[in-house]
């Protein structure tokens, strides 16, 4: 990952904005990532969310399409 990525601003959206975004967009238009533990994911996750625990992000970020917005929780 380029060092410039560390300086990219990251937005925080309220749940209502995310819900509206997910309603309007098709699944192929964004990445949806759950960064919690497998147990937490199993207990409940947003439909279609990809599980990438926070400790694995650096090794698995290539699974995400960098051209699409990424929603993380």
């Amino acid at each position, binding site marked *: 990952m380029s060092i410039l990525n560390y300086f990219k601003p990251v937005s925080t*959206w*309220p*749940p209502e904005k995310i819900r509206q975004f997910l309603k309007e967009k098709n699944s192929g238009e964004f990445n949806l990532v759950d960064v919690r533990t497998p147990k937490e994911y199993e207990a*409940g*996750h947003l*439909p*279609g969310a990809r599980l990438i625990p926070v400790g694995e992000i650096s090794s698995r970020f290539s699974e995400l399409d960098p051209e699409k917005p990424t929603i*993380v*929780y």
Partner: protein
Amino acid sequence: MEGGINAWKGLVAEGPPQSGMAYFSPATKPEEFIALAWFLEDGSRKFYSELVSTLTDRETKELYHELAKAEEHHQASLLKLHGELSGKAPDPGFAGSVIPSGKEGDLMEGGMRVSEALKWAKGKAMTDILELSISLETHAYDLYLKMERQAIDQRSAQVFDLLSREEKEHLERLSSLIEKRMVIRSG
């Protein structure tokens, strides 16, 4: 997302990342994925239709009648897609031809057996049954989204893209129907 999932007031699916995918593991071709999905939709249709015949509350009967109709619509979409992908004229019995063993199945969306769901629903309050319906449909939506992401080829991805889009609409409709019923009851 601000507040994380604790702040989320929308639909939530349960289960590990691979949950439900084993059902589709026998499929290797798009037509087989469609047939397997068709059987799941048929299971849900049977569940809702059976509820219509056993429930006594008129509004709830109407709601589940609409849900059964929605599943029929979903099956019709799958039939149409099968026709397009196979190049053959739509055949209502296509699923049994593609996956003969599926005819004996008792599964519905969400991975629950129709017989078990009906047994569980006996004597339950309408709100409990509606919550089960949303839970099962949400699980199906989650499954189809994940299957699309892992699809082995473009045509299979197309199948699950259609399914997830229809499931999303179905869930919005289900939520809307439930809200409407609650407004009528409280008004």
